[in-house]
């Protein structure tokens, strides 16, 4: 099992967390109901050490699961030792992007290195699909390295936006329009999956 993009991952997450939420709320409700009953008996006896072992397995297992199913985790950890197909450098100053090109076109399966520098405040770097869903993001700190490797597996057109608040000057002071959003900045082509 491998999640090839954020949409697949977030859909799985949505289902899993909804099931968990329904379960925990039902357990508490059932528990509360039985607290008031004179002859309520335990349906299952949960031994303390098994319960603790379950929590440990849940806490650690979650990270093992994501490490093995989300490809960008290992890629991120070892990004400085990996090669890439292209590097694009960005600079942000006074809430304005200096972009490497007006629009970037990426071939399916290419691994891109995004390297962003902030000259003043903390910003963010995020790519968003046309339906508003997020593909990926990172923080952009002044004075630190802000680089990320990303491999694209689905056709899509992405908007570029700052994902961190850097003061109200990011927006038009009257209309509230987001001035840091760059529409249709990156396009992925050549994949079998995704929007044409």
């Amino acid at each position, binding site marked *: 099992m491998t999640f090839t993009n*954020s949409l697949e*991952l*977030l859909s799985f*997450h949505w289902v899993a*967390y909804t099931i*968990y*939420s329904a379960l*925990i*709320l039902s357990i*508490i409700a059932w*528990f*509360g109901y*039985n*607290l*008031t009953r004179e002859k*309520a008996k335990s349906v299952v006896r949960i031994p*303390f050490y098994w*319960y*603790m072992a379950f*929590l440990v397995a*849940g*806490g*650690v297992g*979650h*990270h093992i699961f*994501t*490490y093995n*199913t*989300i490809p*960008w*985790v290992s890629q991120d*950890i070892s990004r400085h030792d990996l090669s890439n197909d292209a590097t694009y450098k960005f600079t942000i100053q006074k809430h304005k992007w200096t972009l490497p090109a007006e629009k970037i076109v990426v071939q399916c399966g290419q691994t891109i290195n995004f390297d962003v520098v902030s000259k003043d405040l*903390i910003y*963010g770097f995020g790519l968003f*699909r046309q*339906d*508003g869903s*997020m*593909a990926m*993001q*990172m*923080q952009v*700190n002044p*004075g*630190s*390295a*802000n*680089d990320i490797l990303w491999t694209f597996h689905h056709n899509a057109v992405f908007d570029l936006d700052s*994902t*961190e*608040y*850097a*003061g*109200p000057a*990011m*927006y038009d*002071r*009257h209309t*509230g329009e*987001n001035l840091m959003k760059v529409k249709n900045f990156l396009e992925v082509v050549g994949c079998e999956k995704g929007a044409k």
Partner: protein
Amino acid sequence: MSFVKTLIHGTNFDHKSLNALQKVTLRAVVMAFLFYGLVALEGMIMRMVSVGPQARRIIPEEFFHPDHFFSIMTVHPIVGIFGSTYQLVFAAFMFLVPYLTKKPLYSVKLANFVWLMITIGTILAWISAFVWQYAPLYTLYWPLPADTTQFSTIGGIVFIIGIAFIMIGTFGFIYNVYATIFARVGVHKNKTTKELLISGFGIDGLLNLINKLKGKEPYTKEPALALPVVAIFRGTVDTFLDAVVILGAGILVLVYLLADLGGVQLDVTAIDALLYKNFFWWGLDLVADGLVLIYVAGSWYLLATLITGQKLFMENVARAALMLELLVSWMVWSHHLLGDQGQPEMMKLISGEMVTAFELLTQGLALFITLVTLWKARPLKMTMELKYLLGGLAGFGLAVPAAIIQADMGMNRVLHNTQWIIGAHVHIALIVGLYMTLYSAVYVLWPLVTNNTKLYSYKLSNTHFWMHLIGGIGMGAFMGMAGLDGMLRRHLYVNGEFNFDMLMAAGFGTMLLIAWAIFLFNIIMSVGLKGLVGIFLPAKDKTASYGLDPEDM
């Protein structure tokens, strides 16, 4: 009794019968719930803006302006966390510590100073946003709070002074609590500071466990401090560290703003933004992962024992676990920096993921102990305090796993800074988990603090419970879903981009607001307007304890 008569005089509340400790507790509680109303209103305004153009017919155009919108977003957590939650928790603990240790509070004057400082500080921070629209958000990411090209210098100074007032008030609370715990009077007359320290840190619980494993007699059969006091003792360590960090950051910002006022431009790059972020999150995270979780665990233990009238299940384990929780809380801040590429990978892995996952263990343990304590005492009457306690358990049952899920390098890449974090995790933890626990404490303490005042209506209490529970979970859920759809948390959306989720969140948020109004109405009808004013009048009875025979003091 007629409605008007009840509104003025309450049920049977007599403020003149209250002693100094009861009055100072109630003063802070009143302020906490007034600030809660303000914060709920602020939340609704921001939600309405996010709904989009349709909301322009309901709320003024100014709210859609970024300066205005983000100034509300800046003070929203200040009013909510410090003005409301801190006040409520501090009030409860300044009453409970003397009550549980059977000693008088160290100083009622200091307790009055605490609620006044936090109230004035919160109001100052709010004014800085309202008048000058100072809006660096509560995160104060460097160098934004010192960016005088975007913000008014005076506004910034007023904001920082407000935060400093809150932190000074916090130090007052800490001093009062520890001075009470370490006072060698009453039952602690013959205890040494060492014995109280050992008990405060839960070392006696750990030694009891070790002795049990070795087949020896317990280290102590009667620990010097009751378990809830141990939790307060531990949580207050984090409260102290957190106050030091926030005050330190405030002083740094203040230096830059004062220099600017004097015409000197200090170099903001002298402070490394990422290092500052680490320092600030270390302190700020102690609020969430330190004092909240420890205080909450302690409150659950207290409530479970008071509701059941029985001893806590696995008390020694609970004592020792609180120590572990304290250590864990100091090492988890990196989960806030998983999206920062300059942060060392090992710190992300160890602090951000692995140690953070320990919170599942410590909070899961607290949940288990509380549930088993309740279960062993069944059948129980489904009282208001039990209902709220179960609501609080459910809230953390939802919010803690949500936190563990997002504290992961893979998930964080697509969840960081989204509405998922603030909705499914933070708002459910605070509104459902923490507040329902606090409401349970309010109902438990109500007869003690008000001298058995009859509650105006249990029907209203019930309505409040269900509306708060459903409203809180519903709002958090739809905010979370908006986050999964890509909606950012510190962002202005004026075109209704996430219209459906925000409309639903606004609907459930309205339930929360109505629930608060119902609760307030019920309380006012119980104590009466006269009684409400009377709470703020000086107490004739200067006693700083509750339920103690003067000869025992």
